[in-house]
């Protein structure tokens, strides 16, 4: 009896926490198509005017463009640096391992407001504030830990006998790496790139320090929008931002499905070949 009561209580609490967590998403999306300009809930009618307003506004479009290009560039740079780092962490030998590990994970821990201030002070003198390069450098630092984590995970599950087999059959070390290892860790790299992109896409605190009339990212533009006046355009942009993130995750999910399906086909082929040989 006590057990049932406890479980019921836990279940109820979990439902409430679930509502609490999902509430923002559940409220924002319907509001973005409401006809009322006052963000009334439940939404009245259905309109796409807030989306049109966003897509027809040159300032919003410029910030969207900056966000996309900064996000893609920092995801790319994160993947290159992070994958190399992960290879070193899993397979390599290098001195000061503990210190290096601390440096690699530090961007996840240091509060963004500190990173923002430090980078602002430094970049100001170098003329890197309000430049795409400045944003990409910082966002790469913030995104790299996610690539590391994902690639380390997929590298640890790579069967090194496959690489040895390739080299036994005459492949060069470089060829082995690009034709055996890289395809095997590609899903981890993709997941890492995705997280790095989203980190950059969502990042607002450091971006506030680096933004200005020349370059503003989407979150910073939203930030100043919210502080001045809240209207359904912000809800529409939030929805678009959510869709971008969900699409990225869905894309990764589909890729994973395809990858595991082709893996299954390959296994099946091997089994039939073995049967034929027997």
């Amino acid at each position, binding site marked *: 009896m*006590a057990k049932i009561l406890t*479980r019921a209580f*836990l279940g109820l*609490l979990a439902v409430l926490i679930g509502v609490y*967590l*999902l*509430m*923002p*998403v559940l*409220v*924002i999306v319907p*509001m973005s198509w409401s006809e009322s300009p006052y963000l009334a809930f439940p939404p009245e009618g259905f309109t796409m005017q807030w989306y049109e307003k966003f897509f027809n506004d040159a300032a919003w479009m410029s910030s969207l463009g900056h966000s996309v290009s900064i996000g893609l560039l920092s995801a790319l740079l994160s993947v290159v*640096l*992070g994958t190399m*780092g992960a290879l*070193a962490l899993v397979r*390599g*030998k*290098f*001195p000061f391992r503990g210190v*290096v*590990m601390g*440096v690699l*994970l*530090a*961007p*996840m*821990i240091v*509060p963004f*407001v*500190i*990173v*923002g*201030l*430090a*980078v602002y*002070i430094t970049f100001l003198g170098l003329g890197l504030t309000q430049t795409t390069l400045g944003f990409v450098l*910082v966002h*790469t*630092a913030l995104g*790299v830990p996610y690539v590391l*984590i994902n690639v380390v995970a997929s590298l640890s599950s790579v069967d090194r006998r496959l690489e040895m087999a390739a*080299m036994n059959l005459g492949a*060069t070390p*470089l060829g*082995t790496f690009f034709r055996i290892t890289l395809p095997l860790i590609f899903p981890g790299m993709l*997941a890492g790139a995705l997280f790095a992109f989203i980190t950059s896409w*969502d990042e*607002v*605190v450091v971006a*506030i320090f680096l933004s200005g009339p020349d370059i503003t990212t989407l*979150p910073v533009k939203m*930030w100043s929008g*919210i*502080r001045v006046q*809240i209207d359904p355009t912000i809800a529409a942009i*939030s929805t678009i*931002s*959510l869709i971008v*993130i969900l699409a990225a995750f869905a894309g990764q999910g589909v890729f994973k499905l395809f990858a595991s399906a082709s893996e299954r086909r390959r296994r099946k082929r091997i089994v039939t070949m073995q049967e034929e040989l027997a």
Partner: protein
Amino acid sequence: MSTVETAAAPSTAAAPKRKYFAIDGWGALVVPLVIFLVVVFLVPLVAMLVKSFTDPEPGFGNYVAVFAEPLYMKVIMNTFYVALLVTLVTLLLAYPYAYLMTLVPPLWRNIMMVIMLIPFWTSVLVRSFALIVLLRDTGVINTMLTDIGAIDEPITMLRTFSGVVFGMVQVSLPFAVLPMYATMSGIDNRLGLAAQNLGARPSGAFWRIFVPLSVPGVAAGLLLTFIQALGYYITPALLGGPQNTMIGELIVQQVSAVLRYGFAAALATMLLVLTLVLLGVAGKFLNLEKALMRRS
């Protein structure tokens, strides 16, 4: 690319004299990343530290100013107070949630995980905006309560202390639940059954077996929550009032409004040192690396 080629050579062949400084081909691949992070991440932090002692004039003036002005001390105390309260509320909500995840069948566990991860990957800005829409006087909650006749006057929730805590706990929850669940799912449930076999009541087995075993994950999760809460900027700035200013907001204000870089750098340095000390102390007892690694 020569690094990759050398990597294939047996690493034991060329064992250097001093083993401690040994680096092999694979290990060398970490060098570009370390250089990148030192230049883009560590050098700016050091520059900030220097600035806090040199701007506008050399000395400890900026640090003295922090402690001399009661208003700034109030902000610092408020920051600690909010962070502690957020951590406490997060514990009360995250622990049962993570515990329930270990009890339910896999399908439900996945659903609970997704519910936790959706806000985790939704921007803090979007969520704070949603909370404004929910909590303001003409917002969703007040309108609903008025419509069903529960209240006559709207309850002020935005720009209040509880508004800030409400918003920040929501941001913190996933960070706490993920390491907690990871530890809890590793606890062998036969231990609890054994205790009950030996005569313990289920509640006794829970409190004396399960809870102590879950402490490492809980402590790691809460520590990360606390550290993060100290540095929050967006949520308190949007949901709190001038009464509940936190240190992150003060830092931005000092830079953007009054251009006191040195003073802002001093505040940020203090926050950074505190963060590192907390991590250092906790790192002696907890596997924080693991807790961080579980985030994605």
